[in-house]
């Protein structure tokens, strides 16, 4: 099966703040998308229509706000996509569980580890940590070890 990447890219373009294409996929992603907060669900919907599956959701705590990553891959063609969304100061991102049901557990895990709230998640309770560990958020960095976004993800060309 061949997938029309140009079609896919033109479809997600309207919802993305920036797109980086790397055909070699040397860092593990062929398409690196920075999505707008409001465009995340549309991007996910387009990817599902094109047959992508959700590999994982994760986050990285940087200054000024935690960054949430969604990695997608495809069963028939070797193509990996990463979508990055900034959680903002209030640590909120929209949930994609009505598109990818598999996101439910990943989002609950992120809620445990980072305290990120996923708007629209119907059952955002503890998955890995216990009730007593509410607010523990182990992967939130201390003030001392927290680094800025530019330090961790240097702009293109410098990395």
């Amino acid at each position, binding site marked *: 099966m061949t997938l029309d990447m140009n079609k896919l890219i033109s479809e997600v373009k309207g919802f993305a703040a920036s797109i980086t294409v790397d055909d070699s*996929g*040397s*860092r*593990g*992603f062929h398409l690196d998308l920075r999505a707008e907060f409001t465009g995340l669900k549309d991007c996910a919907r387009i990817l*599902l229509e094109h*047959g*992508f*599956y*959700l*590999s*994982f959701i*994760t986050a*990285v*705590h940087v200054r000024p706000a935690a960054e949430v*990553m969604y*990695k997608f*891959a495809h*069963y*028939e063609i*070797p193509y*990996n996509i*990463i979508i990055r969304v900034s959680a903002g100061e209030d640590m909120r991102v929209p949930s994609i569980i009505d*598109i*990818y*049901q*598999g996101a*439910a*557990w*990943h989002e609950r895990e992120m809620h445990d*580890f980072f305290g990120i709230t996923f708007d629209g998640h119907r059952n955002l309770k*503890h*998955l*890995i*940590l*216990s009730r007593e560990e509410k607010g523990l958020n*182990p*992967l939130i960095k201390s003030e001392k070890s927290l*680094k800025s976004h530019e*330090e*961790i*993800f*240097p702009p293109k060309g410098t*990395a």
Partner: protein
Amino acid sequence: MSQTAAKAIHYRYFLNLGPQHPSTHGVLRLVIGMYGEYVLSIEPVIGYGHRMHEKMAESKPWPMFLPNTARMDYASPLPHQHAYVSAIEKMTGIQAPERAEYLRVITSELSRISSHLLWLGAFLLDLGAFTPVLYSFDDREYILDILENLTGSRITHCYYRVGGVLYDVDGTFVGKVREFITRLHSRFSMYKKLVEGNIIFLKRVKDIGVLPLDMARRYGATGPVLRGSGIAYDIRKAAPYSMYPKLDFDIPTGETGDCLDRYVVRIKEMEQSLRIIEQALDKMPAGEVMAKVPKKLALPPGDISFSTEGARGEVTYYLVGDGSEVPYRLKVRSPCFSNLSLLQELCEGMLLADLIATMGSLDLVIPEIDR
């Protein structure tokens, strides 16, 4: 209200399965809403074996995390380790010597076979067949001995290093592996006779727990669970790493996606793994098994993701560096996490006994989910 309807209310109840139940393999707890013998809802409760590996990764220099990678998927630890060292090699631009890459392939495939053998015994045990586990553990023991001689540990092997592998192998190892290949080849027909013709086995697994493709996609199912549904998706072919592009092997797939297909796929996969090992032993060149690696190796800023095909599916290590030796963030994508999350949708409405069969066919390793 008729008398039966009034009674029906009493047929609804909650059943607590686990966390210490033998068929949940490890500490998994299921809270099952039941209607008589039928499953209405399932809520898996996980986290009993949680050790926060991801936090450990970002609190010490990267070489100190190597032993941790063997403690998530204890049934086949080497593909996890493969993903971790490869991610770091890719990030820092280190290339392992060819001999080391072949050794990684050989040991990873041995790890896969040992995991499938463990699953074979445990799965059939779930279905009430006690005998096969005695045979499959007998075969698995050979692999554990081979790997113990090489790596120094029976289960939690810590054998790969950034830039190569820890020890070189000698003729004894090669001879032992070849001996094992011959032995396992001769055992497949015995397994077939022992298991596949059994009418009780077939009734328990045929057309049970059918996983459709669109559900697999929405949940991110990978590995034999997905391949049972007829999709030949294998990281070893889709995003070839190490020496896999140079080796000739097939990706077995099922047709309907039921428990029987997942069983068949794993059995055929073992045969393919033997094929891979045989070729790798033939092609493995002489030479070094470690590249020159600086004593202190800092991880440059930026992120990288590296996937390998574990015994249960896509294993991905997502690594973020910050210019120091300590990773800024490490995310471990374990295949079982996604494979278990689809249980609720897959098993709604089935009989309790079928739920046990379906769960067994998913081949869950709980410490990998809890991490």
